[in-house]
């Protein structure tokens, strides 16, 4: 709840950015669906997990920036968290952007299987991946984002290959130039 309030406070704070301007920072928050490679943990099939995805992008140059990405996904037994950072390339258009990024960081996987002495099992390991985001410029300070990522994570001494889809709102801050007219 605090995260949602904070997100809309940031939206209010971003007032003032005009159309056609390239922002200095983007903050994204949204709903996310993850197709988790649960078979590697002994589950019968891949599992769909649902949750959130937040990301902040600092645009260092017009086309290049750094993205910090965090996501959490939840199922009946499984909980996954990713904390990632990586470079981003942005292809800008008048009404939309396309972001390409690589991500590196940590994956934290928890399996809630009730035991006599513990409530479940947890493992933290390396994670890497990448993907793309499509941003539609809905308002001068808002965009709507649809993103898709691939992750390769090492937890529980296995390697999981996952896919993530996120949908949400992007808030823009500051400005570093004007976008190219088509």
């Amino acid at each position, binding site marked *: 709840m605090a995260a949602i309030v904070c997100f809309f406070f940031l939206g209010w704070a971003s007032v003032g950015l005009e159309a056609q301007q390239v922002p200095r920072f983007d903050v994204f928050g949204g709903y996310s669906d993850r197709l988790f490679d649960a078979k590697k943990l002994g589950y*019968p099939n891949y599992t769909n997990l649902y949750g959130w995805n937040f990301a902040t992008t600092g645009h260092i140059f017009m086309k290049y920036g750094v993205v910090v990405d965090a996501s959490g996904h939840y199922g009946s037994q499984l909980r996954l968290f990713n904390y990632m950072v990586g470079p981003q390339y942005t292809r800008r258009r008048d009404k939309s952007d396309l972001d390409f990024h690589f991500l590196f960081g940590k994956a934290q996987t928890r399996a809630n*299987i009730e035991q*006599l002495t513990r409530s479940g099992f947890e493992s933290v390991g390396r994670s890497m991946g990448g993907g793309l985001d499509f941003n539609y410029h809905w308002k001068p300070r808002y965009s709507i984002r649809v993103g898709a990522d691939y992750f390769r994570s090492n937890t529980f001494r296995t390697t999981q290959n996952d896919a993530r889809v996120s949908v949400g709102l992007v808030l823009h801050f500051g400005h570093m130039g004007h976008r190219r007219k088509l």
Partner: protein
Amino acid sequence: MLDKSNRLALTWLLLLGSIGCTSTHTAYLTLPTLNGISAYRIDNNSGRLTLIVGSPYATGNSPGPVVVDPSNRFVWVANRTDDTISLFKIDSVNGGLSEVLPRTTTGYAPLAMVINSSGSFLFVANELSSSISVYSINSSNGALLAVSSPFPTPPNPVALAVTPSGNFLYVVNSNLGSVLAYSVSASGTLQTIAGSPFFSGNGAAAVAVDPKGHFVYVVNTTDSTVSIFAINSATGALSTVVGSPFATGTAPVSLALTPSGQFLYVANASSNNISGYTIDPTTGFATAITEGPFSVGTAPTLVVSDPDGVYIYALSQTSKTITVFTLTTTGQEVQGDLTNTGYSAATSEPVAAMSISQ
């Protein structure tokens, strides 16, 4: 009719739904040096085993025999130096285990266990106290209740098997080289069958009953043979089939039948291979499969058939591996010869026993 966007969404959903949807079994392996039990997911398409998260789960000391109940809800493990049985609940989502306390007391050194096909009784062979414990199983929570005090046997019962009907129990006694035969009443009490014990061979070590309840198979480690007996369906008495005992490799220690009862496999610990036989369904005569014996690496100590009769798993305690074989099929017909799939799974510690869910 669906418009284009709906068709796209439907295609996406079907794609997501189809990814990785395979039918599977779960296997449970006891690790006595680790005092634990590991759970594996078996991919029915490849026979491959994947360790289930959380494995190994803690048991009592020196876990040995393990059985899965027919409804796939419970697992029981006999702790050989604790003289107890651990009850585990199977997680319905991933097949993982969680123990339910308290543990049930058995006789000394529970060395073998078997459950009847209806899941109503569990039989335990106590090697050092030379007895058979019989427990009724609470179908709702898996709890065990001793039917009576343990039934005494001659010294050193080491293996047992029950017929699919649940009417007869056969216990291997290695000292006598014989099979002890018991009838099982509706309440679980045992009654010695006339003519028992039935001589098998020197070093009798493992026993199995064919899925149709027609024959009993016993491997004789010292003699390097397998004995086959026909079961009298009315009395449970045994009679040696023509040609029995049949030669195996050196030091047979374990045996497995396919669910059809058509093929028998014997693990030979000293000759490092598996002997295969085709069983005549009428006479019980065993014909060695000409392509065999099948090489399996170092000292196979266990051989297990999967419930679908597609794969045979050979376990080695010394190399700590599970080798996966597949039965050759020609068209719709299953042949008895084994093909090594090239896939083997490593276990963290030597395995004492393996049981596969239905």
